[in-house]
């Protein structure tokens, strides 16, 4: 314990050097801008600025590599917070892990007219989640990475299934429709080449479908365009948002007060998010969805979810940020990236002449602890900048309809196009915008569809990897153990219960599940 604290103090000595602080600030600001821009996120931001980090390392002398990686990490943290802004203000997720924020962030900002509170709650939860995760990273980095690596395909498959089942009944009136949407998402995720056999699936002879349907255009369509169309119908065209003019300290105070009431939820979800982040290759997205699902499952106000419930903002955001910090663990301790962004950062480490892995803790102690200390400082900086900018950011919502509405559609088009430079993706966005509009009219929950689409590929991959490893024996899901515990079996049993209970309840009810008044739009 004391040696860890000593190492951390040394790390702060490195991170607090003026050049490191300055470049951390530059990274955070660039990350925030990148996170807000459609089609760009942490991964692309770090990738775009990788050449800059090499220049920084060259100019920085002996500690140049540490300065460079602190700069890249700053971009990552900035982009994490920046992605929140588009999700909450425009219903367009900047990053996959920001998707869960749409469900309650946007309704609180728009329908309930509290953009400042929505953003403030999200930033506060981000900060707390990241802080908890960084403390865990400081003390348990190596030990946790070694445990996480023991998770096999059976356990990872069970984790994904559990993520889905927590979402059944998300719009509590419609568990049957939730299952439909999960199945539709899994089906859409399967379109294109089978990554294992190369076999084309569900393309119906269309060559352009061979590369599959990616979640970004679909999500932008369902949530961004769909919401704009629904708003036009509900509120008419030409309306101007009437939002509270007093966005600022009051909202921030309320956000802290809301956090105090929910600290019992935010802390365990942050720990869970961190553990998800440590799982190599998975991380923030699954963590944020599970965080949202768990917050809803254990909430006394289930019916408020999807309508701007603050727990629905804080839980996924705390989980996502702690998972992002967690994804650094396997990168530095084992040389295995925990997320796409940490994979790009790892490429940066190689370029900078560092070999990620357990030896990094011994051979480049200053670097590792400097990076860990910079995570504390980076989140503190990002949090302060974001809080200061909340009133400015919320002003965006007061832009006249005739400008903001076509602008949202234009940035949605950029977002869907710039992922693969594909005009087809723009078409997918528009089509799913119309589909999303219709499904929300009939109170189909859209969140399970997006979750299944995002995680569908990984779920199938782990299922098949588990079966390949067991020689095709499905009992592997019951017999596989981690440290003597049948984790996969436990999670799958829990999943079955979570899916059956709301369905049985729904089938026994005499009233139609579509008869509720909860807006499926945001759930």
């Amino acid at each position, binding site marked *: 314990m004391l040696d860890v604290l000593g190492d951390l103090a040394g790390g702060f000595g490195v991170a607090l050097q003026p050049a490191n602080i300055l470049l951390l600030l530059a990274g955070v600001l660039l990350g925030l801008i990148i996170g807000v821009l459609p089609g760009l996120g942490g991964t692309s931001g770090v990738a775009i600025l990788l050449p800059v980090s090499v220049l920084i390392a060259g100019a920085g002398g002996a500690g140049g590599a540490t300065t460079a990686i602190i700069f890249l990490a700053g971009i990552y943290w900035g982009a994490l917070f920046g992605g929140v802004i588009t999700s909450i203000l425009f219903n367009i997720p900047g990053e996959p892990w920001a998707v869960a924020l749409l469900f309650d962030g946007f309704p609180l900002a728009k329908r309930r007219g509290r953009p400042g509170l929505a953003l403030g709650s999200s930033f506060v939860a981000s900060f707390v989640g990241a802080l908890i995760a960084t403390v865990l990273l400081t003390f348990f980095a190596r030990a946790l990475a070694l445990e996480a690596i023991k998770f096999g395909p059976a356990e990872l498959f069970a984790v994904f299934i559990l993520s889905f089942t927590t979402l059944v009944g998300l719009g509590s009136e419609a568990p049957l429709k939730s299952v439909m949407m999960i199945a539709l998402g899994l089906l859409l995720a399967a379109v294109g080449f089978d990554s294992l056999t190369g076999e084309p699936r569900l393309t119906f002879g269309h060559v352009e479908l061979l590369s599959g349907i990616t979640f970004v255009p679909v999500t932008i369509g369902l949530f961004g365009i769909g919401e704009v169309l629904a708003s036009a119908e509900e509120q008419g065209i*030409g309306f101007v948002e009437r939002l509270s003019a007093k966005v600022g300290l009051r909202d921030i105070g309320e956000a802290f007060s809301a956090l105090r009431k929910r600290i019992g939820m935010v802390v365990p979800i942050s720990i869970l998010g961190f553990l998800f982040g440590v799982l190599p290759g998975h991380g923030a997205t699954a963590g944020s969805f599970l965080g949202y699902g768990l917050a809803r499952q254990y909430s006394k106000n289930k019916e408020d979810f999807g309508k701007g419930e603050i727990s629905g903002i804080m839980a996924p955001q705390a989980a996502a940020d702690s998972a992002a910090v967690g994804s650094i663990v396997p990168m530095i301790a084992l040389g295995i990236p925990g997320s796409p962004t940490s994979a790009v950062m790892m490429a940066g480490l190689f370029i900078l002449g560092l070999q990620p892995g357990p030896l990094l803790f011994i051979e480049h102690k200053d670097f590792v602890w400097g990076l860990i200390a910079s995570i504390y400082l980076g989140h503190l900086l990002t949090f302060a900048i974001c809080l200061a900018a909340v009133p400015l950011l919320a002003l965006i919502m007061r832009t006249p309809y005739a400008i903001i509405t076509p602008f949202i559609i234009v940035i949605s088009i950029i977002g869907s196009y*710039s992922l693969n430079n594909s005009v087809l993706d723009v078409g997918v966005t528009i089509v799913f915008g119309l589909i999303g*509009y219709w499904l929300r009219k*009939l109170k189909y929950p859209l969140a399970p569809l997006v979750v299944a689409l995002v995680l569908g590929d990984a779920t199938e991959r782990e299922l098949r990897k588990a079966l390949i490893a067991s020689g095709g024996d499905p009992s592997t899901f019951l017999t596989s153990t981690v440290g003597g515990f049948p984790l996969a079996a436990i999670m799958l049993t829990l999943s079955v219960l979570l899916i059956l209970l709301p369905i049985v309840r729904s089938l026994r009810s005499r009233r139609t599940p579509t008869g509720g008044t909860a807006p499926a739009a945001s759930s």
Partner: protein
Amino acid sequence: MRRYEALTAAVIMAIAAAAMFDTRRGALPDVAGGAPGGLSGGFYPFWSAAVLFAFSALVLLRSLTVAQAAEGVFKDRQSVTAMLWLAIPMVIATALIGVLGFYVMTGLYMGFFAAAIGRYRWHWVGAITVLFPLVIYLIFEVGFRVGLPKSVFYDLVKF
């Protein structure tokens, strides 16, 4: 409400049925051992489609047999018109990206809204038409080197 519910569930059932038909050869585990792990590429989509089909059928059945909410799907004719005012230009603008390119389309689309919905004065409409694409160009093409679709007249005007 009832007919829209039933029709939507039926359309989704049809999509699921088409997907099941397309992947039917991989529906059952490959006991002969030809596929890795005993599962061919069709297994996962087939059973996803099967679940979709079964649950759509349940929703369809319930929409026909269980009491429905009294409210309609649409609020009134005016609200549908408002939605169409937004949806139709959006679809047209998207269809024109291939010909006009992103920047010209954005300028015209933003200008159309400023003029038709905002009813701004002509100089504001002109400014919006020019400035929005210009700012987007500077941020994406110049700043981040993200190329956006160009018009068929790219040889004459470079956007």
